[in-house]
């Protein structure tokens, strides 16, 4: 019976590793990266994944192996030990080293992606306002100013020009939401009362998912959006068409 427990514990590292291998080979992995800094984000992800995966497999494997090895040995007495300073010290130093390594390697990317000082110096493309349970997007129109009559509005459909830096301001009108563009490797919480600048540069035309990644209420599941990346000409045409629809004076 004790052997069964050992095997049961061993299924954890085996099934855990298996799930990752299977997921990465059958389309359940990251969607294709289509943003300028996405590869860096993915690189950081893999650094952390390999460190944690190694530690995970090693510790759970060791636990299973010990359980199996010492199971059901008639006559053997359990022995009581109380710690080992050398082993514990080494493990603590290793962990500290790993954490410091993770912290230091992401400085550059973090500054580029999240720090206003690292942002590209371009005019704000849009205001994106999250609310239960939709995304409302406002473009400044021809005058470049928000809150003027020539603003253009869109609902759940965020259009951006390809190969340009898209800098926008994220806000929330009610509770916490999270603006998530999986293909662009962009995820940012929308916090009521804060205006948070966000940016990315899409490298490919097409339509991509925009989802809310923060449980924001009962209707969270229906908070769907779409990112449309198009050529600058098509983007301008779309803005003009939206504006015409908004100014519709005839049915």
């Amino acid at each position, binding site marked *: *019976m004790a052997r069964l427990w050992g095997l049961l514990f061993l299924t954890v590292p085996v099934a855990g590793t298996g799930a990752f291998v299977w997921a990465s080979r059958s389309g359940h992995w990251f969607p294709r990266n289509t943003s300028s800094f996405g590869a860096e984000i993915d690189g950081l992800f893999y650094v952390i994944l390999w460190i944690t995966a190694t530690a995970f497999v090693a510790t759970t494997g060791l636990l299973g192996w010990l359980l199996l090895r010492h199971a059901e040995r008639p006559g053997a007495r359990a022995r009581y030990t109380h710690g080992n300073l050398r082993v514990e010290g080494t493990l603590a130093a290793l962990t500290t080293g790993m954490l410091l390594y993770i912290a230091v390697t992401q400085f550059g990317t973090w500054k580029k992606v999240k720090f206003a000082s690292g942002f590209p110096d371009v005019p704000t493309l849009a*205001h994106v306002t999250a609310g*239960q349970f939709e995304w409302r997007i406002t473009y400044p129109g021809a005058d470049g100013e928000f809150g*003027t009559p020539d603003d253009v509005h869109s609902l759940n459909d965020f259009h951006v020009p390809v190969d340009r830096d898209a800098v926008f301001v994220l806000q929330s009108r009610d509770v916490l939401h999270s603006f998530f563009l999986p293909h662009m490797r962009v995820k940012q919480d929308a916090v009521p009362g804060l205006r948070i600048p966000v940016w990315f540069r899409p490298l490919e035309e097409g339509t991509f998912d925009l989802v809310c990644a923060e449980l924001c209420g009962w209707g969270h599941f229906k908070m769907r959006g779409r990112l449309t990346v198009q050529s600058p000409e098509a983007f301008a045409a779309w803005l003009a068409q939206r504006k015409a629809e*908004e100014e519709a004076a*005839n*049915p």
Partner: protein
Amino acid sequence: MRLIGSLHSPADRPAPMTSGEHGFYARTFFLVAAVVVGLGVLAVYVVDNSPIGMRYVLRTRIVRGKAVTEIPADARAKVEPILTERFGTPAAPKIDLEGWESDGARLLRGAAFYRRNCMHCHGVTGDGDGPTARFLTPRPRDYRLGVFKFTSTVSSAKATREDLLHTVLEGMPGTMMPSFSLYDREDVEAVVDYVIHLSMRGEFEEALAMRLLDGDDLDEDVVEEEVELLVEGWADAASSRQPVPVVQPVPSSAEAIARGSELFRGAGNCISCHGPSGRGDGPSVQGMDPDVWGNPIRPADLTRGDFRGGFRPIDVFRRIHAGVKGTPMPGGSMTEEQMWDLVHYIRSLRRGD
């Protein structure tokens, strides 16, 4: 303390587990896991497929503005079979009314979509009182009165299919009604059918109950009469026989806005409710009767720009022409040119976000 003690003092340790105990714990673990997974699967199945606990319940009291009518149990018992015969159940909805075309398969599809996305606010019967409704201001629409606020039809007419479709696609800014623009169009069309089904059913319920309370018997003639009235109202709106007429608009200009401002303060008498600055804080709101759903009146803050019925000139024109149905916001009694001046003025009140 006992546990920590046992870890640190060998003498105190409990006896090792016997293989019988191991077996007991292993069996219990797998049993509990199986029950949890089973319940989860069952819950998903019930929500998606089964109308367990979901049936159309008749109203015990019908509210229309200030008027509240209690419907006694014996009256409900007489109305219920007729309603079920005509409108079916949530699991098998139908609209069985002479002169009204309806597609059973689409209604069923609409009902399924409604259960997933709409019911938690709008309720099983469309009463606007689902489990999440109590947390919302403004309250979700109660469809059962057959009244919808924002339509393209004249003030005396019902909503068209397109009006309801527009609301589902665009949502209602400033409320908790979200946009479903990115959902499968077939689903959205189907759910509009289902909302009309709920709305007709609620109206029919009210009509029959009122006939009973008036002392009529619900014999075939009376039922047919009410069916005819109901279908006529919806068919008139659907056939676009009663749209708000749209004239060539007066284009927006400083002069048009100035004329609109004059009307807003003067002949239009908009300021009595919407206030001199358009913030919805006019003096007449105090002590005003509730709207047709029994909710208190809150005039729109016109400076916010997130108009429930839309901010397009055509939307604002329709509001001014036909009013906001079910509320004290009246249809305008001025020329269409004047209405367009008002449209331009009101749209100019929007502040930045």
